[in-house]
């Protein structure tokens, strides 16, 4: 992997974002659950600090 590749730079940036989220006190986790009968999977980010309220995030 070339160190300046956009793929690498973006990955580093995203990892830094994740680390900052933790530092900022917001604990994010991803909940994936199945929702029959549509067989869809919800991608949700739960903010535990707000009692498991679901929000959309990157």
């Amino acid at each position, binding site marked *: 992997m070339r160190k300046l590749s*956009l793929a690498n730079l973006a990955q580093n940036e995203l990892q830094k974002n994740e680390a900052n989220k933790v530092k*900022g006190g917001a604990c994010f986790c991803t909940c994936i659950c199945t929702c029959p009968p549509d067989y869809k999977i*919800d991608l949700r980010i739960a903010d535990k600090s707000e009692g498991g309220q679901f929000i959309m995030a990157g």
Partner: protein
Amino acid sequence: MKKSSWFYLDPYVHIAIKQGHALVYNTLTGQALEEDSPVIVDLIKKLNTKKHLLVVELGEEELNNPEIAAFVGRVRSHFSGDLIDKSYSGGKPLLMRPQVKVQKDVEELKKGGEGYVGEEIMNYLTEISLYIDNSCTGECSSCAGGYRQFLSCTRGHTPEELEIEDIKRFLNEAQGSSLFKVTILGGDIFAYSKFTELVGYLNKYSKPKTFHSHYLHLEGREEEIGQIDRAFTSFSIQVDVPVKEDRLAGVAAMLARLGLSQDAHYLFVIQKEEEIDEVEAVASRLKLAQFTFKPFYNGNNLAFFKDNIFVNKAELLLLKPSLKQIFSRMKLNPLSFGKITVLSNRGIYANVNAKKIGVLGRDSLYDVVLREMFTGGSWRRSRERVSPCKSCVYCYLCPPLTGYEYSLKRNNLCNLVD
């Protein structure tokens, strides 16, 4: 009796089909199959329908088709699917085909009116960057365009600075949000007329802060830096290349005296390949704990970008984007989502390359976040929305759009699509 089998793809496999071209990507191993044959593309299309849910029946005739047999072999060798003898099952097996669905998708919520969308909208806000002033006497070559490509200081021709009361009001509005980072930039942030008052306010502000400064602006600012509360505070130090090493050494020594070496992150702005080695040598000599390269497109270094920055297939697969990452890239831009920038002219942006979404002192933070969610101009700008990426099967495996695409005036910073 003719033998037939169930052929299935595993649910952790990402399937993309565009213009007669199909990609079967295993999100666990990072292996990908690209298929062009109409017979195979049709088979993948069929597998990917709600009706078939990743499982189709293959009869003896189809299994004897060399093209299909070879594809099945490739899928099996990648652990992306398998064949099961039909006699093992009483009925058609079912696989849960993952499909992204955002619980509070703004496009759905919009149907319920503005108030409904705005209900919990402040939870989307994650970062605020404030350009508190634009004064600087430096002559960096990356100054005019750098801030459009990455978070960078910049100067203006006519002096501007944000009102301290407007800054406080804006940040106070963010107190109940999911904000996890406030970045202070300039110009020269130490030249801001209310710097001491701002630091006093930020010291009490509960969210993590980053002070972004050009390294030459830090010289002789020991007293001002000393006023900053170290708790939840970091420093981004921008360094243009060629580096004035003795002066950078002085800054690094000053930060060490203040006990801030571990909180300092050096951002080296480079414009050509030779500068990579130069930066690594300087960072090694000065024992800089954390440093990052920030490639700058100056309009004349396309070859440097093509050779070093443009992505290729091998690198995309090496990073093994997960199903979760792919899903989020379908719906939004994970690099810019939740970020707000306020320039020293008071303009508020979700992306400094896009249209202004508000004015500091006039619009509330809530209003600008709502506006951005409604228009989706930046936060939800995925590669699916732009050409030629939307025609490429790799568009969700690619890194999200950055400031570089705007500066280079092309969305495909890759060697995959011409």
